[in-house]
């Protein structure tokens, strides 16, 4: 996963917001976590806005809702790095399983293949592997291909 959401859940968000941002591309900032466990009201947006304002405000509201869900988290670059890596590996695991489905035309992935991917994914979550294996997508697709080949050899 792209590191764009790295600050969400950490009590402070500041990101470029390329897909939903304002015309000027200004950074989005969300700092208010004071009432994170308070129910949001159904009609909380209110007021009249232009279409662009609505898009911007909705995106900000979505980010604020995510922060409200997870609650305040202290700024911690190391914890953010661990979470970034973990989620990048989750996305890579999803992509590898998707590749297996395409290759086999079946769902789910054969158990032995899924287990091999899961074991490698668990290892890759360690941030200590980032330097040697910075691209979990590539690693897990490769592992999936090898595991599928072994599975087919055994099944044949």
């Amino acid at each position, binding site marked *: *996963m792209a590191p764009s959401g790295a600050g969400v859940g950490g009590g402070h968000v500041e990101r470029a917001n390329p897909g939903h941002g304002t015309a000027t591309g200004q950074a989005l900032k969300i700092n208010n976590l004071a009432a994170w466990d308070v129910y*949001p009201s159904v009609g909380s947006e209110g007021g009249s806005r232009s279409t662009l304002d609505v898009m911007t405000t909705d995106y900000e509201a979505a*980010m604020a809702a995510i922060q409200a869900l*997870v609650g305040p988290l202290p700024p911690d670059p190391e914890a953010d790095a661990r979470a970034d890596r973990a989620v990048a590996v*989750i996305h890579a695991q999803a992509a590898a399983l998707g590749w297996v489905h395409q290759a086999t035309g079946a769902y789910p992935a054969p158990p032995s293949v899924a287990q091999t991917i*899961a074991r490698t994914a668990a290892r890759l979550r360690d941030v200590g592997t980032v330097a040697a294996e910075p691209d979990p997508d590539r690693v897990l697709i490769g592992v999936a291909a090898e595991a599928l080949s072994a599975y087919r050899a055994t099944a044949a």
Partner: protein
Amino acid sequence: MSRRYVLDDLAVVAGLGEYGTEHHRREFARLLVGAVDGGLSVACPAVCLAVAGQVRPAIVAHLAHLVATCPADAITLPGLTRTGMLDAIRDMYPHLGWPGVHAVTTALSRTSLLVTTDTARYDGIPLDVIDL
């Protein structure tokens, strides 16, 4: 229909403030941000949400607010529907309980990825499971 992440009740509770580990909460936030930003969408089955809501009632309103403010279909709360698959899953895996049954049927309906903190819960069930 495209694949998506399906969060079971265990994953949702783990992602909640004060109930989950800090690491799980950071992961949970990133999965949701990824969905809002155009990545794989995220589904939280209604029965799983109901269970999580017993742990922390405010989550229901927060998730509803998120669904209402994020791009369409990025984050959804699928309902429980009587289908042949539901009957089959109930018959074959009675140990799952309703949250697990709903998570499995939701994942299977779109050949999706079930995200949980306890992958052993789904041992022997033919679906793709990812550990949060």
